[in-house]
């Protein structure tokens, strides 16, 4: 008997996973993921960039199959996926897990395809969890490579393909074909393009391609089943040290959805703990930002690198030229300064009137990032903390995700802030685990409510939250879409 390819193993999981076999804690995490992603779409829809994408998609004049969130405007499945995912990522306000920012495709794809098919809530959340599991494994397989985090746009190709395949009811051969079709034209994010408005397409375009791949596979188009592990396949071409075995490791036994980290602020994951520190200090002390002499931010070497990639595009001149806040989501000094002055870090800090404000940039110039060996070790040591023994053993393929207690993971994306005042007084705070990450729980209803207030009539907010938290009882996902959209 021929051994399955990786895509065939994944296809087996996609077709055969039953809702009742998904642990309750994973269902709960997925519901929180919906709350977080819809909140991010609400916020993104109010950005200048988000509005351009929404208006353009409306002009396409597509067949009416699925809704744009939050307007409820009907368009095609693929345009709904493109728009909702792109708008969702606008403020870098969406979750991530081991390894990748999966929610921003897993949720919009499952809702859009499900709406067009009148799927049940159980079918939709199962497809969403499948997308998380497969995207997360694909991201981990290229962890040791030139790109990281959101730059792994190609995970949304496979996420779109598997979630749509599941909802369309494809058989195993067809699902493997969908994966082969989706990954055949793998997207590779160009660093420079990432710091412009076009960054918003980092998830939506690949997710759309992935969804279309499922429809083509349904109608008989074939793709390479060994596209992931072939010598000239996805893993070898995308990673420096490919961890191919992770892509189909312990499917249905280990759940990477367990590692979901929810963002409660707009911005890269590396700024979360730093923002926590400042806001906690604000609660405790009355800090007059006008009297700040300097701010020292202690972070990992990865935070420093992230900041360096974005830095040239975060000056006022550059921001005026690019006309977007996008690069600011990756910069520590602006994040720190805006949070210190405004005493909050919300979508408001990324509006034009704030990001072109010289006072914030003047304070940002007083912020110094100091790489910290201990924090770097803690972050880079996250994998050993979840009992992965060594890189050599990982590469050897002897290792399985089932050997890891993923439900016991804490994410040590630590950061510390020291504020030095003109009078010599110092304020210091360290946050080991950001709020919203495993090990430091956060109530996602708060984030949903904070952003829904700007979109939904107030009387619709609680029913929308209840509908998401009871998604398994929904007979037709269109009923939930109605509750989260403003004009239906």
């Amino acid at each position, binding site marked *: 008997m021929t051994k399955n390819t990786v895509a065939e193993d994944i296809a087996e999981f996609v077709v055969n996973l039953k809702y009742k076999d998904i642990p309750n804690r994973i269902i709960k995490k997925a519901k929180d993921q919906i709350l977080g992603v819809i909140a991010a779409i609400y916020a993104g829809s109010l950005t200048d960039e988000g509005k351009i994408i929404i208006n353009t998609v409306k002009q396409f004049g597509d067949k009416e199959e699925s809704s744009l969130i939050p307007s409820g405007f009907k368009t095609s499945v693929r345009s709904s996926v493109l728009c909702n995912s792109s708008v969702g990522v606008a403020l870098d306000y969406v979750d991530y897990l081991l390894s990748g920012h999966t929610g921003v495709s897993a949720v919009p794809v499952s809702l859009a395809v499900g709406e067009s098919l009148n799927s049940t809530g159980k079918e939709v959340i199962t497809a969403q969890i499948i997308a998380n599991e497969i995207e997360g494994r694909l991201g981990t397989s290229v962890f040791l490579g030139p790109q990281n985090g959101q730059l792994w746009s190609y995970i949304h190709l496979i996420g779109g393909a598997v979630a749509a395949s599941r909802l369309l009811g494809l058989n195993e051969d067809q699902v493997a074909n969908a994966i082969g079709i989706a990954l055949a034209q793998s997207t590779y994010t160009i660093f420079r393009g990432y710091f412009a408005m076009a960054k918003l397409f980092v998830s939506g375009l690949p997710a759309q391609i992935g969804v279309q791949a499922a429809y083509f596979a349904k109608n008989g188009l074939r793709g390479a089943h060994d596209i992931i592990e072939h010598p000239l396949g996805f893993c070898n071409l995308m990673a420096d040290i490919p961890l191919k075995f992770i892509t189909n490791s312990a499917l249905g036994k280990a759940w990477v959805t367990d590692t979901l980290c929810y963002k409660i602020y707009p911005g890269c994951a590396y700024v979360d703990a730093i923002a926590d520190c400042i806001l906690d200090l604000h609660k405790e002390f009355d800090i007059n930002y006008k009297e700040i002499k300097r701010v020292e931010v202690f972070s990992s070497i990865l935070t420093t690198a992230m900041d360096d990639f974005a830095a*040239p595009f975060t000056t006022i001149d550059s921001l005026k030229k690019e006309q977007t806040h996008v690069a600011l989501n990756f910069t520590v000094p602006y994040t720190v300064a805006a949070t210190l002055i405004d005493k909050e870090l919300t979508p408001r800090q990324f509006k034009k009137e704030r990001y072109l404000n010289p006072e914030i940039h003047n304070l940002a110039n007083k912020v110094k990032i100091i790489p910290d060996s201990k924090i*770097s070790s803690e972050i*880079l*040591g996250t994998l050993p903390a979840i009992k992965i023994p060594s890189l050599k053993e990982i590469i050897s393929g002897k290792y399985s995700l089932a050997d890891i207690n993923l439900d016991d993971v804490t994410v040590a994306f630590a950061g510390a802030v020291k504020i030095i005042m003109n009078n010599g007084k110092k304020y210091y705070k360290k946050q080991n685990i950001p709020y919203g990450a495993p090990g430091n729980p956060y109530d996602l209803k708060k984030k949903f409510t904070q952003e829904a207030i700007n979109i939904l009539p107030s009387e619709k907010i609680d029913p929308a939250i209840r509908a998401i938290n009871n998604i398994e009882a929904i007979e037709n996902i269109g009923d939930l879409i109605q509750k989260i959209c403003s004009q239906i």
Partner: protein
Amino acid sequence: MSELFNKIEFFCQAYKKNSKKLLNFKIGSISNYYPQGIKVNIIVLDNKIENYTLLISDTSCKVVKGFSSSQLNLSALPDVWDKIFSGKYRVIKGIMEGKIKVRGIRSMVSPLIILSSLFYLYSEDFDNND
């Protein structure tokens, strides 16, 4: 030897002193990723072109004058290198701002991130901050 050579030497000593502290996690050893270590040519663009070769492995770091065969060649003006090895500027930022040129960058992004971080981390003794 030039002032820059001395600064790179300082970096090497600091790296050797601290490398175990930073790399004291199972996944982080440079040799796991680069069995031969990371070899980089530091090219100083000046009236007279000055080159150094830096070789970094798990616990050792060596700089020699001259150009060696390496896939990783970084070129910049003297003041840029001076700021980098004074902990005042970083390689990635220099690349993004066009002040550091890298040949064949497509396959070099990972080692560049590592080098950029290490140069910054060990060109000043940041860990002595209270």
